[in-house]
C-alpha cells in the first residue's frame, strides 16, 4: 500500500493559479494524481483550466471537495502562512515545495506542528515532493523515471534523488514511495520519521536513504535503524568534498554537537547501523543491490 499517498489521495493545490502551481498541477494530473481543488484567496468560485475548482480557503477545499492532502507552491514570504492554514484545516498531509522560506518562520511552524491537537504531517519545505509510483505524484519530480515496486527512497535533495531512483529503475527495481524531505535546516518530516514509516510499511522491502552534510538528522535515523530496522538499507551522504566553515559561526557549530554533521561522521553512523554505503553517487542503487536481491 506504500506510505502517505496512494490512488485515494485527494489533493488540494495551494497557489494553483500561479505559474509554478499551474505547470506542476498539469504534470501531476497527467501522472494520474486526483487534484480535487485549488486555493487562491480571492479567486474562489473560478475553475482552473476548466478542470479544477478554485477555493478561497483550504478549509473550504476540505469541506466541499474532500481534500486530504495539500501541496504548496506559494512564494516564500507566504509559505509559512499557507502551511499554518492547512494545519488549521486539519489536512493530514501537507507538502511544501517552496524554496527560500525564512528559517524563523519554520521555527514557528515546527512549534505549531508539535501541538497535541495537530493532525498534520508536513513534508518540506524546499523539497521535490512525494510519489507513490503508478498511483500518485505530488511535487516537481519527473514521473517517468519511477516505476512501481518495493524500494522506499528518502532524500534531502531533489535531483540527487532522481539520480538514485533512475539507477534503481534502470536495474529493474521499482519504488514503493519516494519522499524528498527537503534541504532546509528546519523541516516538517525528518529522515528518522521517514525511515520509521517505510520500516512499518508492509509493501516496502528495502530502503535507500540519501543525506547531506550538516545537522544530525542522518545520525538520528541511523540510531533507529540499528535498533529497529531489519529491512536492507543503503545510504549515501553528499558533501564529503565541501569545505568546512562556510555556514554559521562558532556558536552554530557548538549547538550541532561537536564532530557531528560531517560526511565522515554520517558515513560512520551508517556503517555502525549496518547500512550498505555508497561512497560514490553513481553507485547508490548498487549499494542496495549488494544486500537486497528484490
Amino acid at each position, binding site marked *: 500500500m506504500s506510505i502517505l499517498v496512494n490512488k485515494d489521495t485527494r489533493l488540494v493545490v495551494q497557489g494553483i493559479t500561479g505559474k509554478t502551481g499551474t*505547470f*506542476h498541477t498539469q504534470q501531476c494530473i497527467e501522472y494520474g494524481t486526483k487534484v480535487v481543488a485549488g486555493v487562491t484567496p480571492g479567486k474562489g468560485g473560478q475553475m482552473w483550466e476548466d478542470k479544477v475548482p478554485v477555493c478561497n480557503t483550504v478549509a473550504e477545499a476540505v469541506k466541499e471537495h474532500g481534500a486530504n492532502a495539500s501541496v504548496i507552491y506559494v512564494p*516564500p*514570504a507566504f509559505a509559512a502562512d499557507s502551511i499554518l492554514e492547512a494545519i488549521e484545516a486539519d489536512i493530514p498531509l501537507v507538502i511544501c515545495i517552496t524554496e*527560500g*522560506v*525564512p*528559517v*524563523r518562520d*519554520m*521555527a*514557528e511552524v*515546527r*512549534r*505549531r506542528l508539535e501541538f497535541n491537537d495537530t493532525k498534520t504531517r508536513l513534508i518540506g519545505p524546499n523539497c521535490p515532493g512525494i510519489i507513490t509510483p503508478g498511483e500518485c505524484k505530488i511535487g*516537481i*519530480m*519527473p514521473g517517468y*523515471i519511477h516505476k512501481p515496486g518495493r524500494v522506499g527512497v528518502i532524500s*534531502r*535533495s*531533489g*535531483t*540527487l*534523488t*532522481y*539520480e538514485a531512483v*533512475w539507477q534503481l529503475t534502470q536495474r529493474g527495481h521499482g519504488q514503493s514511495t519516494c519522499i524528498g524531505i527537503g*534541504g532546509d*535546516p*528546519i523541516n516538517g518530516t525528518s529522515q528518522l520519521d521517514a525511515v520509521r514509516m517505510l520500516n512499518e510499511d508492509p509493501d516496502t522491502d528495502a530502503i535507500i536513504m*540519501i543525506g*547531506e*552534510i*550538516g*545537522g*544530525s538528522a542522518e545520525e538520528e535515523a541511523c540510531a533507529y535503524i540499528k535498533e529497529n530496522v531489519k529491512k536492507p538499507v543503503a545510504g*549515501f551522504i*553528499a*558533501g*564529503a*568534498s*565541501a*569545505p568546512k566553515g*562556510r555556514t*554559521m*559561526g*562558532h*556558536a*552554530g*557549530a*557548538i*549547538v*550541532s554537537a*561537536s564532530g557531528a554533521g560531517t*560526511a565522515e561522521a554520517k558515513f560512520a553512523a551508517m556503517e555502525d547501523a549496518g547500512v550498505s554505503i555508497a*561512497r*560514490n*553517487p*553513481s553507485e547508490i542503487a548498487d549499494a542496495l543491490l549488494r544486500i537486497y536481491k528484490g
Partner: protein
Amino acid sequence: MNIHEYQAKHLLQEYGVPVPRGYAATNSREVETALSHLGDEMIVVKAQIHAGGRGKGTFTDGYKGGVKVVKTPEAAREAANHMLDNTLVTAQTGPEGRKVQTLYLTEGCDIEHEYYLAIVLDRETAQSVIIASTEGGMDIEEVADKTPEKLIRVSVCPNMGLRSHQCRQVAFALGFKGDQVKQFAGILTGVYKMFWEKNAMLVEINPLVTDKDGNLSALDAKVSFDGNAIFQHPDIGQLRDLNEEDPKEIEASKHNLAYIALDGNIACMVNGAGLAMATMDIIQSFGGSPANFLDVGGGANEDQVTAAFKIILSDPNVKGILVNIFGGIMKCDVIANGIVAAAKNVDMTVPLVVRLEGTNVEAGKKILRESGVALTPADSLAQAAEIIVEQVQSHS
C-alpha cells in the same frame, strides 16, 4: 549574510545594548574626525573585515595585529595608516587575506572580566538557544571542548519568546549580583529582540565585559542574518558589503545561480544542490579537485547557462569543466541548446565534459553531437568524472 562589527554594534545600540563609543572610518580624513570625537584617552583601532581572529592576525606587509589598543591620538593615527588598504591575514581569512577598507575607532575600556554571550537558531530543536559563559574573550569552541560545564545553554520557545526568569537564570549562572543582574537582563532582552525581529541566525557578543565600576558593555559583536529573510528587512540588506564577497559569487547571485568558489581546478555546473555536492565528491574520488560549487537550479535557461560558463571561466585556476544535468522538469534538449549557445558565446579554452540524463536525453545528446562544439559526452556520472579528471591531468 554577515555584517561588520561596527554595523552590528550600531544595531545593538538601537536595541539598548551598551557599547563603547566608536566611529567608522574609510580614509585618513574620517580617521581624523573620529579622533577629534574620541579625545586623548585610550583608543582602540579595529580593522573591519568579515572574519575572526583579527587581533592575532598579521598584515601581508608584516605589520602585526588587526586590533590595536593605544594611549594617544598619534599612535592611533599611525596604527590606522598601517591598517587602511592593507591586507590582513587571520586564521579565518585563508592565506590570501582580506583587504581592510574600513576601520572602527572606539574608546577604550578598563576591563574587569570578559564573558561570552550568543543567541543562535538551533536546527535540531527549531528553537533559539542562548549560549553564555564566564570564559569570554577566547575561542568558545575550545571552552565547549575542554570545560563544557562552563557553557550555559537556555532554549527559548519561538511562540513564548524570552521570559524574565530566563534572563535571571543566565545572569545568576554567570555570577552577576545586584544591579548587574538588571543590567544583564536588559542586554539579553535587547539582544534577543534584535535576533528575533531582524531574522538573525547568530548574534555573538565576545567579549561582553564588566569594567572597574561594574558596568556591562559589548566589546565585540558578530551578527549574521538569514539570507532568505533579507527581503523583509531592507535596512539590513543595505548593510551588505560587496567588498567582502568573491566577485564571482556576486555575479552569480545576480543571475540566481548558487555559486561558491573553491580552490581546485575542475569547475562543475549542476542542477540541484545535493547533486552539485555529489558531483564535487565524485570528482574528488577520482583524484581531481573541484574549483567550485555551482547549482543552476531547476529551471535554468540559456542566459543562466551562459552566465554560469562565463563565471566559471573567469576563474584562472579552472583547467576543465564538468556539466552534470539530470533533466527532470527541465528537459535535456533545452539544456543542450543552452550549452551549445553558451559555448559559442564564450571563449571555451578548457576541456568540457557533458553528462545529460533524464527527460528528452536522446534529443539533448543529438544536439550536442551535431553542434560542432568541442566537448566530450559521457553516459554516466562516474564516467564523466573519470574523463574530466583524466583530461585535466594529462593537460597539466
